[in-house]
């Protein structure tokens, strides 16, 4: 079945997928940290609304999310009306879509990790002369390592598995916006089951290994950080 090996186009799709997932994850960790911190500490009423919005991608069909992003980012969309470029069918557009799509997978583990650090420990740090930023770096971050590990793994893996959003706003431009999941769909459409099989097996193995690594590392943390 794997007689032809992997084509250049499929290789490009694989590279693009990994690049997209990596960029998205980095952005999500940077944006998700302050958002999750705020959610874990605030008593503002708006918190519930923000939490619901963050969780939306969990229940929304990706095509719905993709459709609205297309309206927002595409030709004649508000971004372009304000003088910006059309981001539909570009890698940047894919990154923006993925950030929304994978948001809960990064924010929720971080929020849980931050919440479990507890006000009591932070008060102790303050009484030991640590200012707010110092407390975050030297107490909250080390105690939230497991949360970060979970957030990074889930954010990355979920972005790798993205299909609907990409199809709506990225289309299927090889080397530009064609990711693995869409390449697989293409192969199936073209009844090229061999290539579809190869890519599918690669994705399956990759996802499994990432999750396995997560659980192994998590177990280690549990032992070391009881």
């Amino acid at each position, binding site marked *: 079945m794997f007689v032809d090996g992997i084509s250049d186009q499929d290789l490009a799709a694989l590279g693009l997928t990994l690049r997209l997932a990596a960029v998205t994850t980095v952005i999500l960790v940077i944006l998700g940290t302050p958002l999750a911190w705020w959610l874990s500490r605030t008593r503002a009423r708006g918190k519930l609304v923000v939490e619901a919005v963050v969780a939306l991608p969990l229940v929304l069909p990706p095509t719905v999310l993709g459709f609205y992003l297309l309206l927002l980012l595409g030709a004649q969309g508000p971004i372009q009306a304000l003088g910006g470029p059309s981001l539909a069918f570009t890698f940047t557009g894919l990154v923006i879509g993925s950030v929304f799509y994978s948001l809960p997978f990064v924010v929720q583990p971080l929020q849980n990790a931050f919440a479990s650090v507890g006000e*009591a*420990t932070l*008060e*102790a*740090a*303050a*009484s*030991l*002369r*640590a*200012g707010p930023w*110092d407390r975050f770096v*030297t*107490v909250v971050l*080390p*105690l939230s390592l497991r949360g970060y590990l979970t957030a990074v793994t889930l954010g990355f893996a979920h972005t790798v598995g993205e299909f609907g959003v990409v199809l709506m706003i990225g289309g299927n431009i090889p080397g530009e916006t064609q990711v693995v999941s869409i390449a697989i769909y293409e192969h199936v459409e073209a009844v090229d089951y061999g290539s579809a099989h190869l890519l599918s097996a690669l994705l399956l193995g990759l996802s499994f290994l990432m999750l396995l690594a997560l659980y192994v590392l998590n177990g280690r943390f549990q032992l070391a*950080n*009881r």
Partner: protein
Amino acid sequence: MTIEARFELHRPEFTLDVDLRIAGRGVTTLFGRSGCGKTTLLRCMAGLEPTATGRLVVGGDIWQDAATAVPPHRRAIGYVFQEGRLFPHLTVRGNLEYGYRRIARERRLVKPAEVSDLLGLEPLLGRRPHELSGGQRQRVAIGRALLTGPRILLMDEPLAALDAMSKQEILPYLERLHDELQIPVLYVSHALEEVVRLADHMVLMADGRVLAHGGLRDLLTRADLPLAHGQGASTVIEAEVRRHHDRHHLTELAFPGGTLMVSREDVREGQRLRVRIMARDVAISLSRPRDSSVLNCLPVRVLEVTADPHPGHVLMRLGLQDQVLLARITRRSLEHLGLVPDMAVHALVKGVAIT
């Protein structure tokens, strides 16, 4: 140095309203029932209650008033929390040095090695908090607070979460702190046994207010305060170990009002210590009894006779030079002996506890 603390804090169903001057030396205990505002007052002083208003001046520096509110991490306090609150991701050494590394060199009063030595932490330095017993954890918490070079040490019931064994393990360390450090300590407690052992001054609190404030011995024996009427009504006497009587396994203690014999204790001759005499362990005799088994008989003068919660009992305040001894006797004995103020009588002390 004095500490001036005035705070107001309003919460549903609780109001804190205190105005205190705290001695710049020795241990001041905040004593009162759970929920009377002791811990809240401590938290106000540390800056951990942002809604509290008032004024806090420590040794001339204003930490809080209408215009100023120094944030918690800029107040030179050491805070020992009830539950220790050690950092789980750091070793004992890491916990001890956390605050130490964050203060200016000239503010460092003690070195980590000295603190480890004082609190017996040397063998624990490489361990993580989850590998420590409750008493060990609390010792680390105390050491960690001392290493921040505090101008005042706030201790919030540091023994409350510990079992009786751990308490006995940690109390000697607290006494050493009391003897060796010049830092004023504000110690929250609702256990009279700890208070009589450690306190120099006492702040009696109830319902968010200060009921009385003064020297430990004064407050313990004031008939108008609840302490003298509770189960634990007692007097504390500072005494010196005079000598041991080997034949009878007794230890003789001297104090300005006389001497006391106690069952032999493991103390040095010349050592200064505190003894606690419970009001229920003191009996009255008109003459010096010749045929009694009670060892300790002290000549005293009746100062005052007041009612006690039980209608069959009275509480007597007895003058012993400049000290006051409490005795709880029955109303029947009071009438039978015809005891009135200013009478010279003998106090028979049945039990003396070295604290």
